[in-house]
């Protein structure tokens, strides 16, 4: 039975696990576009024409544009600081999380549902992005956008994101493709779009949405979150499967269908992965029995390496 997030008392920090944060703290969710600009040596914001305002200082880190070094502060503190402007960052990330009914599934002995796992992922990513002084926004959706938080670059914004994650109720339908199309139209600024979903939806619509985002010059990262039982299908005996999101019922002997089920799933995943590769989007299949920090760290680390070596 799917776990209900309503069973736990609301807690703003529930999806921010200090242990996880501690492990992924220094990782950077850097955008490819940021690295491209750096490597090109243009030292110019690719976002010409934007008005920028001084926002705050932050300590210099490798990769920052030296033109923004605040020499006065350096004279005072003896350390390098850069001036940060409102829209100085190269990265504006939008985190899209699926909140449909299918995400409420959890297999026996799993401590969390897919949605909870995804929420952990969303919150952690938001934290990382904000932590590196980038802006993050969140889109919670099911058959349509249920909540849209504009990108902000503050810790308080992360808390708002977590609160929305708690607040939004699960809906019985999903239409990831339509949401992707909508986001592609809505987001004007080039940035990073992270899709966190089980993608148990019509593949062609999802692929079309990914294509649209790519056309909109968005960089896409896809986290497909799935439960181990959905991936392994280890059921025995006679089982009646009641489909979530109103997809019907099936009384069968799962063992006899296992091979074909897995083959069908494999084709779906392969289609998603191929589309991601075609659109130069990063893709990661995440099992909810996999420690989040391991999955996230591995992904971020490999992504960083890939970006720096491009």
């Amino acid at each position: 039975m799917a776990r209900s997030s309503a069973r736990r008392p609301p807690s703003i920090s529930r999806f921010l696990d200090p242990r996880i944060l501690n492990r992924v703290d220094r990782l950077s969710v850097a955008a490819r576009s940021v690295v491209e600009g750096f490597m090109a040596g243009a030292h110019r914001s690719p976002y010409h024409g934007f008005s920028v305002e001084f926002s705050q200082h932050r300590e210099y880190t490798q990769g920052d544009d030296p033109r923004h070094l605040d020499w006065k502060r350096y004279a005072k503190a003896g350390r390098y600081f850069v001036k940060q402007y409102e829209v100085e960052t190269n990265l504006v990330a939008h985190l899209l999380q699926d909140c449909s009914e299918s995400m409420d599934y959890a297999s026996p002995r799993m401590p969390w549902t897919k949605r909870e796992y995804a929420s952990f992922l969303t919150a952690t990513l938001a934290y990382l992005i904000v932590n590196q002084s980038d802006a993050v926004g969140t889109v919670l959706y099911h058959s349509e956008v249920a909540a849209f938080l504009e990108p902000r670059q503050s810790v308080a914004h992360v808390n708002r994101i977590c609160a929305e994650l708690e607040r939004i109720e699960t809906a019985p339908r999903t239409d990831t493709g339509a949401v992707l199309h909508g986001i592609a139209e809505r987001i004007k600024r080039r940035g990073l779009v992270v899709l966190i979903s089980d993608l148990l939806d019509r593949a062609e619509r999802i692929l079309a949405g990914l294509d649209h985002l790519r056309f909109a010059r968005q960089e896409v990262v896809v986290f497909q979150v799935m439960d181990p039982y959905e991936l392994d299908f280890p059921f025995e005996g006679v089982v009646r499967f009641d489909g979530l999101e109103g997809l019907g019922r099936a009384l069968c002997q799962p063992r006899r269908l296992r091979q074909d089920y897995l083959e069908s799933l494999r084709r779906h995943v392969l289609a998603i992965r191929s589309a991601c590769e075609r659109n130069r989007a990063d893709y990661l299949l995440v099992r909810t029995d996999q420690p989040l920090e391991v999955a996230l760290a591995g992904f971020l680390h490999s992504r960083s390496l890939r970006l720096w070596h491009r």
Partner: protein
Amino acid sequence: MFLNPWLLFGVALAAVPVLIHLLLRRRYRTIPWAAMAFLLEALRKNRQRMELHDRILMLLRAAAVACLALALARPTLTGRAAALAGASSNAMVILMDVSGSMGCHDGRETRLDAARRVVKSLLAQADPNTNVALLAFSHDARMPLGEPTRNLAFLDQELDRGILQTDAATRIDRAVGAALELLRSRSDLQAVRREVYLLTDLQAYPWTERHASATFAQELERLGREASVVLVDVGDAGLGNVAVTGLDISDPLVRVGMPVDLSVTVRNFGRTPVTGLPVDGYVDVEPGGAPTTRQTVDLPPEGHAVVSFQTVFATGGEHRIEVRTGPDRVAGDNRCFAIVEVQAGASLLLVDGGDARREEPQARETAYLELALAPLEPGAPRPEKPAADVVPAYRLSERNFGDYQVTVLCNVARVSTDTAMALARQVRAGMGLLILLGDRSDAASLNRVLGPEGVDLLPAEIGETWGQEPDLRAPVGVEPRRLARDPDRLTHPVMAEFRNEELNELLAPVCVYRGWDLTPRAGDEIRTVMAYRDGQPAILERRVGLGLVMLAAFPATTAWSNWPTQYLFPVLIPRLASRLAAGHRPSRNRMAGEPLSGSLSAGERQHAVFVHPPVPEGRRQATVEEGDDLPTSRLRFRYAETDRAGFYDVVPDRPGSRPQTYAVSPNVLDEADLTRISVEDLRSAYPGFEFTFVTKDEDVVTRLAAERRGVEVWPWFLGLVFLFLGFESVLALRWAPREAP
């Protein structure tokens, strides 16, 4: 038809796999599922195939259960269906008693007729695919109508003329053994159901231990396990029987012109007396002729009488004797047959080895023998006294020993080598030889010529003399040796009658003052005829070829003993002579079931030997073989099919051959006693023998209808069970879901 119809309920259990399938579908877990699309796609792709597989497996399981139930219910096919099934519904072994008692007539039919009637009804009702083996048994078991066959019409047709009455005794144990051997060894008798029908008159004696083999009880038990045994009683109770149980000829040394006494024993096996029973004797009378002599006799209940008559044979050679009594219900045992061989001339040769210069007749070594063996005047009282030729020892070589039945060497000093060889040749051909040792006997010469180094006739080595000649006028001071009288020591056939108290007294006064020591040689063919009280042999006998040799330690004169003057002498000497004359030749008089055998000249080797039995007409070939106990000049023939009483002529297939006639009498020693054994006593005596008992007057087939259930086809159903389970296992394994890569 089902042998266990109550097990048919098990067919309903074929629904169990279906119920299990349905019940399992009702017992399931419910799981909410997100990745439903993939599951539905897999289900859509496999639904039809899975349903088909499920139905096939369910059908196989249901069919296996149904077939198992059917197999346990033991279905059978009968009639043409059984024939189509390709298996014999029954294999039948029919054992028909054809012994002498089966000729008993109850006023309507003989027992054998009743048995034929029952067999015909069995054949008429048998499935056409039944293999039938029909054995006729009396003293042995044979298949007179050939090998087992399904041609039941042929068996029915040949039953009357192929299964014939015999005069032999009953050996049911041999019939049972033959049936077991057939059931074991014949592949055409390996049917699902096997039946053995034993048709007999339940005469008591064949079922006793004395007349059956040691393993009879076990064989009966095994027969009951190998097949369904039906014992058909074709006899009936309450019948008495009169039979001729013996025909004795007083003396085998019969000569032309010599009166011969014939003693006929007639026995009444019933409980009512028989009066005025005619007893007819036929001497050389052609079939259908009038009897030579007729007497009547009265018989008490379960008693016997002896009828004697005398005849004189005018010519030498074979003479046929037949005795018949009045008719009763068992005609076969009212007859008896015998062959008498009559000598044309003297049949004994006495050789006087004494001093030829003696002129007194009584001084001859053969004097007392001549008296003891001399024939009496006609009308004088018996005993038998054959005539004898007397020759001095020096003229021995002139005699042709083949002319005599017995040669007696009386105190002969020595024997030439040629004479010894001639004697040996004739002894091996059947002549009897009596050697009476005396004061003139040259032991060393006799040992050398007649002993192992010579012609090997002597039963003992001649040693030294002992004692001294007595002066019968003054016997004081000489202690004689006396003859053994203990009945346990009178074991020789000639001495057996001297166990009788009256005759035993004749041994007492005989005193032997001097004699030769005899050291018997080793061998089963050597016997002690008479011994001293101290156990040492006085007269020894040895079987040599077809003849007999006797060696006496003292002469037949009063020189060394008082034997010739005692009553024993004229009683014993003729008996010794008779035994020597009979020799070791097979008797011409046999009982039904006993094989005929005799010797032929080796010159007949290249010719076949045929036997003409009394019934049926025609001739049969006898087997001819050499024998270690025969001289090289002789062959032995053998013929075993002596089931019928009467005269059998044995004729070598050579022009001018002279037939030898043998007389076969009905085996009445036990067969004439019609005492029956009850079924209860039979079951009690053989508790392990399982059988169904039926009488001849019952409708056997109807009675056995419940036993006849056609061919059982349960093995087929069991085979189907294995087949279905095998398929189910293979398919279940094949269709079992595999691990996903």
